[in-house]
């Protein structure tokens, strides 16, 4: 695809579904590549953000005609989200799905951090990366000690299971969570697409943990999900804060559709499962249809050229392969960074409000410390060491 707006895609009228179509055979937890699961999870997040954004826009929109346009596109996004999310099979335990979610956060954030042209924004991604990396370690410990399962069955050895920036130390005052946003007139299109992608991923993760946390009976699990859900809320706050709030609603809508096109394009180009690739290709076609639909609304309502906002062609894709080396490098160099206001600082300079907040929250114990005390990932679970 060489030019975004020249490829028209499918019109809304041609985007039809049935329930049988929407509810397809899930991927195989055992045989599908972990990157297929990563793409499924991420695209569910991308669609969820599309829906949430289009709802937020509708609530602020006094124009009934525009509200109808939003409702029409949003309906298609909802069909797509169901079809994608239902590709995760029920043989994934909640914790196994959770491991998949954290793998998305680590691998996709790592890839994006390397591709991000703005150095400050890249540092924001690296900062969040090390926190999701630590979440992986804590959830892996829980999975081992509660379910007797090995998280690497999900990770397929693409992603390390090691402590990152300790989750117990990630709790921050809101004043230390808001970052500096890009300038909508100066930022490169890739920066805007990256921000939307990562924000969407963290948002769906927060939603997921807040919904599933109480489905576990074990109080250790319940507390750990409560704790990490709060960090994900922090991450959503962080990532949405790097997006220029001066973008108009329609400008944001246009960028959302472009982000969907971009992500489906990345998936279609790298998906190893032909059945799933066909879904990415179909939805790429649909999203090009949405993009062109919204581009017309943008021209009509804002009297502006969509190419003021959109790139002519899609930027370099997200790299769906193991980012282990980069993650280890960032871990070695930046794990002790903390936040003060919008900046990242050495540990000793961390904001006092965050320290006080964390002290209060952890004053009756830390779930993430409790669950993983003494935990070192071992192939086949830590019982392999105990049985030896």
């Amino acid at each position, binding site marked *: 695809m060489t030019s975004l707006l020249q490829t028209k895609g499918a019109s809304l009228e041609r985007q039809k579904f049935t329930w*049988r179509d929407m509810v397809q*055979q899930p991927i*195989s*937890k*055992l*045989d599908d590549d972990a990157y297929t699961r990563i793409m499924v999870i991420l695209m569910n997040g991308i669609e969820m953000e599309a829906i949430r954004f289009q709802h937020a826009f509708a609530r602020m929109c006094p124009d009934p005609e525009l509200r109808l346009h939003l409702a029409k596109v949003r309906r298609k996004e909802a069909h797509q989200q169901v079809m994608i999310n239902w590709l995760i099979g*029920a*043989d994934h*335990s909640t914790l196994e799905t959770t491991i998949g979610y954290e793998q998305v956060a680590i691998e996709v954030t790592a890839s994006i951090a390397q591709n991000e042209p703005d150095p400050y924004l890249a540092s924001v991604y690296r900062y969040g990366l090390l926190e999701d990396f630590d979440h992986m370690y804590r959830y892996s410990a829980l999975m081992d*000690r*509660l*379910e*007797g*399962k*090995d998280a*690497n*069955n999900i990770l397929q050895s693409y992603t390390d299971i090691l402590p990152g920036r300790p989750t117990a130390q990630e709790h921050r005052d809101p004043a230390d969570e808001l970052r500096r946003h890009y300038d909508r007139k100066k930022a490169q299109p890739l920066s805007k697409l990256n921000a939307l992608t990562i924000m969407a991923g963290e948002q769906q993760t927060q939603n997921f943990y807040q919904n599933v946390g109480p489905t*576990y*009976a*074990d*109080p250790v*699990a319940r507390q750990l999900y409560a704790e990490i859900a709060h960090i994900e809320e922090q991450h959503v706050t962080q990532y949405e804060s790097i997006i220029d709030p001066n973008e108009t609603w329609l400008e944001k809508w246009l960028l959302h559709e472009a982000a969907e096109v971009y992500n489906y394009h990345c998936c279609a180009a790298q998906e190893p499962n032909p059945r799933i690739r066909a879904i990415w290709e179909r939805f790429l076609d649909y999203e090009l249809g949405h993009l062109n639909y919204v581009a017309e609304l943008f021209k009509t309502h804002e009297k502006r050229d969509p190419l003021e906002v959109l790139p002519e062609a899609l930027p370099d894709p997200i790299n769906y392969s193991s980012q282990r080396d980069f993650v280890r490098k960032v871990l070695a160099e930046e794990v002790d960074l903390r936040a003060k206001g919008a900046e990242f600082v050495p540990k000793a300079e961390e904001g006092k409000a965050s320290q006080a907040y964390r002290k209060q929250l952890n004053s009756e114990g830390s779930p993430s410390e409790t669950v993983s005390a003494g935990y070192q990932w071992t*192939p*086949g*679970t830590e*019982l*392999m060491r*105990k*049985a*030896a």
Partner: protein
Amino acid sequence: MQKATETGGNRTGMQTSPADAAKMLKEAKGAKPTPGDDSGIIELRTAYIEDSGPVGSVPPPASAKGAVKAGAKALTGKFAGVFIDRLGERLAFERAGTRLYQAMITKCKAAGDGEGKQYVKELEHFCDEELSHFRLVGECIEQLGGDPTAQTPSADVAGMEGAGLMQVVTDPMTSVTQSLHAILVAELADNAAWDELIALAKEMGQDDMASRFTEAQQREREHLDKVRAWHQEATLSESRLMKA
């Protein structure tokens, strides 16, 4: 934590809401149902079953070279995959079972009136034995040149089956008796699976393994007998408490 099955304010049955229940029943009886019957459920499920692929595949069978190097008889025959699959299932089950017993021991130690403490010593012994069975199966997989870290299809399914048991035992609200029931269900499945694994091992010509599995199965039989007796006694004991 609930100590016994006491009567109290359970609101789930219709008898607790006679007036509302009567109104509900009257309207329900008079309402026109959706046309047809529940055969559509069967048809829908059948369609998906017919179209579905398997849960997944078994890791590639141990190479003859790998097995011979390890000193074990190489797996032969078309059912070699079945054996690896079931070994993987046993491994996962014993591993999860160890965690289940650990949770059960915590429950018994924490029980308020000491009702669970009587089981702790033997539960700890059973837990150690589950761990040793886990080690045994892992060694057997390695001897055959297989990968003990892989999740086989039957291991995956066993994980789904066991999820409910784990929920029951780790729930602070469930009693020792209720948790013992979950352990009983686990041991019933465990015993049945060891029977099958022994038969499979013999079928595969792995006589040494069959012999080692038989020893493990005898330990599991003891677990089952004991847990069944405990659960029965605990249940009768609760009923005696309620009569008193």
